[in-house]
């Protein structure tokens, strides 16, 4: 993908554009320097997506180490210490290295195209925020080779596990998370500045495609909570290295404070990983239903409502730390309240399809699977929101099943749907239908084999983050492990689809899908390196 994308610059790009493209009129650097120095939103988007794909496979291999160890009871393959590092690194890499950069990559590629902007508002900052990521994650991965091993305290890095009892490499882990956080913050600033200032003349906020809307709201969430994460890990760093006692009970601190601060960041963070997915699905379902999106305005307000509520629910991750009854009730009800705007969204997607002329191209398959399976994850979330029930579910595989349902067949499937949807625009070729269908069905079966049995093992009492388990959980884990390897292997098909799609395949016209209406389908496929140098004329549509 990298060496073929995007195509050669078109000759008419010599006027400097609003993005301040410094290389205009100069010879463009070639080879590695082209990618290192690029300020083009499409090239940076491609870099983000390739980085994310790489991290997805690294994090996936770690997950398969976990699943291989859990294939049967007893300790077979890895030591418990290493097992803990694998669960931790899997979570950290998938959250910060795979899902988030994938959405940023899609935003880089598609937000300027969807609002008719020539590029991102701050192209050089854009380059910087991407190249922070490989540095951050090389550093994070290198901790595995350090004395004492890498992070082993779970992706939530609760103090004092991550301070008093942490391996010596933890300061490097903190630094890498700082870098990834700065990258996200800069990316968010860039996206906000682009959306608020570079829309095509005549495009009001309520005319924007929903992917742009959801990303605008996501970017605000990032701006609000990434500094809190930075604050928390800075406190950890000071506790570890400078003898402060933010989270150390011996010195008057409080480990529970860590959990409050972490989840004040952490809960908005999980919506950061799902709101852009809502936007992608809201683009795909109308296209392949050949109908306008049902309830555009309610979709926007529901997204905003979810974002605002996300700041008022954090302690539902901490029902068992000994909250007073009033707090348990408050967080239980606010959590359940989130089901209302989420329900509005699911209703709107279904209503969009109602009496539509539906066809099942690969993007639509993934989007439909998203709607169904994300809802499954939503329902198990409602069960977990019930404070008294959570006392039993807490830290069991039921929780693992819940958040994997919203993140894998949820966020990840939406990313895959978006990739299939926009690949014709990126490469100029349709992805192979036959291969995509194999990829889809193997993924759906694999993902459900992996995560559905976890509901049962969790309800039966299997705790998470353990390398060994009691015999009665053996069958569930066997199925989960087989499904996990099936899902992991079938993602290789996705790589094959991309490679084939970049190299050739059926040529795609500018408007690659019959029912697609947004601005990105008005530029040629593949999209030339520079688009919308003069702002397009935008015709508002009735929503």
């Amino acid at each position, binding site marked *: 993908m990298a060496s073929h994308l995007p195509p050669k610059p078109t000759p008419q790009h010599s006027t400097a*554009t*609003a993005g301040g493209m410094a290389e205009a009129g100069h010879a463009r650097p070639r080879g590695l320097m082209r990618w290192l120095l690029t300020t083009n939103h499409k090239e940076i988007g491609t870099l983000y997506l390739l980085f994310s794909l790489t991290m997805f496979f690294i994090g996936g291999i770690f997950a398969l180490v976990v699943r291989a160890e859990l294939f049967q009871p007893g300790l077979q393959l890895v030591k418990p210490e290493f097992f803990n590092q694998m669960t931790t690194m899997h979570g950290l890499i998938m959250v910060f290295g795979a899902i988030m950069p994938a959405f940023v990559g899609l935003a880089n590629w598609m937000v300027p195209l969807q609002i008719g902007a020539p590029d991102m*508002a*701050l192209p050089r900052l854009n380059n910087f925020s991407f190249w922070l990521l490989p540095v951050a994650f090389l550093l994070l991965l290198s901790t595995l080779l350090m004395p004492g091993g890498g992070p082993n305290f779970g992706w939530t890095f609760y103090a004092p596990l991550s301070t008093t*009892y942490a391996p010596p490499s933890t300061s490097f882990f903190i630094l890498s998370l700082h870098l990834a956080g700065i990258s996200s*913050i800069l990316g*968010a*600033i860039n996206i*906000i*500045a682009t959306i*608020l*200032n*570079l829309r095509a*003349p005549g495009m009001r906020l309520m005319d924007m495609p929903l992917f742009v809307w959801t990303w605008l709201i996501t970017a605000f969430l990032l*701006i*609000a*909570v990434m*500094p*809190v994460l*930075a*604050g*928390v890990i800075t*406190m950890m760093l000071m506790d570890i290295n400078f*003898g402060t006692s*933010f989270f150390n*009970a*011996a*010195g*008057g601190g*409080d480990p*529970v*404070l860590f959990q*409050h*601060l972490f989840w*004040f960041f952490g809960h908005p963070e999980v919506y950061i990983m799902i709101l852009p997915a809502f936007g992608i699905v809201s683009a795909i379902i109308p296209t392949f239903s050949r109908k306008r999106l049902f309830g555009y305005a309610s979709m926007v307000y529901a997204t905003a409502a979810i974002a605002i509520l996300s700041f008022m629910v954090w302690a539902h991750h901490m029902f068992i730390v*000994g*909250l*007073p009854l009033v707090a348990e009730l408050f967080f239980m009800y606010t959590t359940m309240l989130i089901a209302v705007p989420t329900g509005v969204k699911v209703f709107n997607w279904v209503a969009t399809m109602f009496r539509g002329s539906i066809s099942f191209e690969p993007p639509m398959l993934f989007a439909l699977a998203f709607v169904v399976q994300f809802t499954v994850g939503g329902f198990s979330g409602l069960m977990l929101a019930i404070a008294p029930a959570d006392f039993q579910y807490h830290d069991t595989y039921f929780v693992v099943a819940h958040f994997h349902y919203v993140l894998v067949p949820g966020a990840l499937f939406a990313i895959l749907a978006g990739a299939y949807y926009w690949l014709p625009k990126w490469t100029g070729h349709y992805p192979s239908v036959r291969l995509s269908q194999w990829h889809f069905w193997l993924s759906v079966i694999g993902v459900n084999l992996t995560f559905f049995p976890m509901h049962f093992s969790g309800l039966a009492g299997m705790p998470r983050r353990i390398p060994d388990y009691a015999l009665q959980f053996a069958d569930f884990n066997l199925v989960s492990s087989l499904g996990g390897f099936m899902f992991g292997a079938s993602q290789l098909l996705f790589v094959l689809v991309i490679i084939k799609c970049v190299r050739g395949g059926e040529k795609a016209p500018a408007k690659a899908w019959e029912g697609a209406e947004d601005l990105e389908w008005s530029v040629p496929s593949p999209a030339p390196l520079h688009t919308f140098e*003069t*702002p397009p004329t935008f015709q508002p549509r009735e929503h």
Partner: protein
Amino acid sequence: MRSRDHEAAGREGVRRTVIRTLVVLAGMFAFAFALVPLYDVFCDLTGLNGKTSARAQPLVEQEVDASRLVTVQFITRGSQGLPWHLEVDTRQIRLHPGQREEVFFTFRNNGEATTLARAVPSVSPSAASLHLRKLTCFCFQEQQLMAGETLKAPLVFQLTRDLPPEIKTVTLVYTLYPVQATQAEVSHSGPITEGDSA
């Protein structure tokens, strides 16, 4: 020309947006640190984190509420890397609210060297911590013990009468933590045991 104007307006707008987001960023970073003292104040007012006062409090002269009995349990815990042992003479007592009670704890240093340690208290249920008054406590300061030395120290406390009636059992946990000599200097700086005769 219209597009040139549009472009200039866009650039000005970008500058404004970036400045605003940077202000929000700085604010949220400061807010994260401000949450630490805010959390402490919030917990002091509500007693939520089960911490007791770090200073001696005077006895509240009040009539003992003989109509109900509250069980008070004591749990002591050691710490990894600290060769000390902490034991309580009476693991469980039953008392009336308002009553003054005294319990003795025994510290022993099983290690080879003189070390400093501190017993950090925690009260469960946390709502009880607002009604627990400590007149004297070894937990107000560090203990220094030579190798093999034993120290018997009292805890004098009172559960006030306004203890909520649904609380039937109060558990006090004391966890031993090692203290570095340099840190001890700092925490010794304030007056520690005043008021235990009040």
